[in-house]
């Protein structure tokens, strides 16, 4: 199914790089063009490489595709599917936007949560969905993340999360902002119980998600070349009236400045996660 999901994933500028790279619908093995090196690669080959180009470029992928890459086959059990968004401040056009995000992403909200086994190790897993309003956080996303950390606390499980987000969802006003505090509280409780939280920052992770649960993990990993930051680059340019330095607000930038532990290629992520999860099992008993 991951293969089909990937095929049907809506394209965006970042992926297509402005070039026409539409795979021929009748071809047996359509290709995707890398926006970085412009190489055409058959999708079957991309899939084998976790949707990364031979140049190292990481294509944007859906939450379900990512779950297939990380969770052991058949191990993912989704939680909190009943939690979805309403329109708390009756924001103009929001209901329509939600409806189109749902049909575009085939998800009820911008994060998918559940339990899974990763290399045989049980954990709670959340994966944000880029095709749902670019992973923006409203009440439903905040509630799902919070509920997942509470579930993990109750069952003494580690949490592994993948972020992709434009930040707080402005169409829900302050209710979205409050999710930053709410999720942070849940991360804190989970952490105080001595439980592990590993986050993988993917492209892009910005705004209110960066300023809450994305930066609160015990171990912060990042995908190569991802945009990671708080303020939008354009806003900073307009505020400071100066050109931004090269490589500003990338994974490499935050690693250099001390805000990520490591950059891990998508092809190595599962192996790294399995290893780290293993190291956190069976610590000293007090």
């Amino acid at each position, binding site marked *: 199914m991951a293969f089909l999901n990937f095929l049907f994933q809506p394209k965006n500028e970042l992926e297509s790089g402005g070039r026409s790279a539409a795979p021929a619908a009748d071809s047996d093995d359509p290709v995707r063009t890398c926006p970085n090196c412009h190489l055409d690669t058959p999708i079957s080959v991309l899939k084998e490489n976790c949707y990364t180009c031979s140049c190292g470029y990481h294509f944007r992928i859906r939450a379900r595709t990512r779950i297939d890459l990380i969770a052991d086959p058949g191990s993912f059990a989704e939680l909190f599917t009943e*939690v*979805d*968004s*309403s329109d*708390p*401040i009756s*924001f*103009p*056009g929001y209901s329509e936007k939600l409806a189109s995000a749902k049909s575009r992403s085939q998800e009820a909200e911008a994060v998918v949560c559940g339990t899974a086994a990763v290399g045989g190790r049980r954990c709670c897993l959340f994966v944000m969905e880029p095709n749902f309003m670019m992973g923006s956080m*409203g*009440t439903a996303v*905040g*509630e799902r993340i*919070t509920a997942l950390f509470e579930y993990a606390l109750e069952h003494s499980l580690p949490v592994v999360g993948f972020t992709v987000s434009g930040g*707080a969802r*402005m169409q*829900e*006003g*302050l*209710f*979205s*902002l*409050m*999710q*930053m*505090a*709410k999720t*942070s*509280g*849940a991360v*804190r*409780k989970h*952490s*105080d119980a001595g439980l592990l939280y590993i986050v993988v920052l993917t492209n892009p992770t910005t*705004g*209110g998600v*960066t*300023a*809450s*649960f*994305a*930066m*609160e993990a015990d171990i912060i990993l990042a995908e190569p070349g991802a945009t990671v*930051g*708080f*303020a*939008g680059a354009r*806003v*900073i340019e307009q*505020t*400071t009236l*100066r050109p*931004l*330095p090269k490589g*500003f*607000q990338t994974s490499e*930038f935050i690693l250099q*400045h*001390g*805000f990520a532990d490591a950059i891990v290629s998508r092809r190595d992520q599962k192996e790294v996660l399995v290893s780290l999860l293993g190291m956190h099992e069976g610590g000293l008993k007090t």
Partner: protein
Amino acid sequence: MILGAYETVKTARSGKRPTGADYVRNTVSSFFELHGDRRFRDDPAILGGVGYLRDMPVTVIAIDKGHTAKERIARNFGAPHPEGYRKALRLMKQAEKFRRPVLCYVDTSGAYCGVGAEERGQGQAIAENLMEMMALRTPVISLLIGEGGSGGALALGVADRVWMLENAVYSVISPEGCASILWKDAARAPQAAEQLQLTAECCLKNGIIEAVLPEDDLGSPEFYSRLTDTLYDEFLRLRALSPEELTERRYNRFRSVGRGFC
């Protein structure tokens, strides 16, 4: 007087309003300023220190925009850098150690958007404050005195009580920013301001805050005296709770916001 939402935004931003430093001066006696985050530098946008609220020792933290052009530039217009939030956190942890309540005066258009702020982890600094304030074992009251600009305000707003002055505003995004993103037209900010439900009245109705403080005599001795009494009485009530009760209630306060909408 009931103003349109955008009129309230303009009132909240007015340079004529008392700034954070005015509140500190007029509500906290024997104030002694404590500088610096012990990591990088002292952020002048955030003022912090110790003093007395009546006879109660408190830690007070205020975002200050400054009055004159010179002050405003020195205070970076009340837009904190990460080191400002880290200074605030340092002082809050110190307050916890000495079992002092924490009083925050919040007035900012937002956390500063700049290269240095990103290099030094603006997002991480805010995130850490949210997580630490959620677990702080001493009472916290945050009062929004002017602008409550998104994450930059929330970083001092994870409190047991969040109050707003009548003409203060609190928003996930500025009305101008919202209008330019949604409608590609910053001139539609007044419409965005109405939609965002950012006035104190809306925030109270939506359960985001506990109280709206009237400001008919804003800045007068009577105003500050009344405010001091109100804060003092509330801190007395909060101090009666055990640290466990306090943090559990704070967690549930934020846990329940917006419940019923998802």
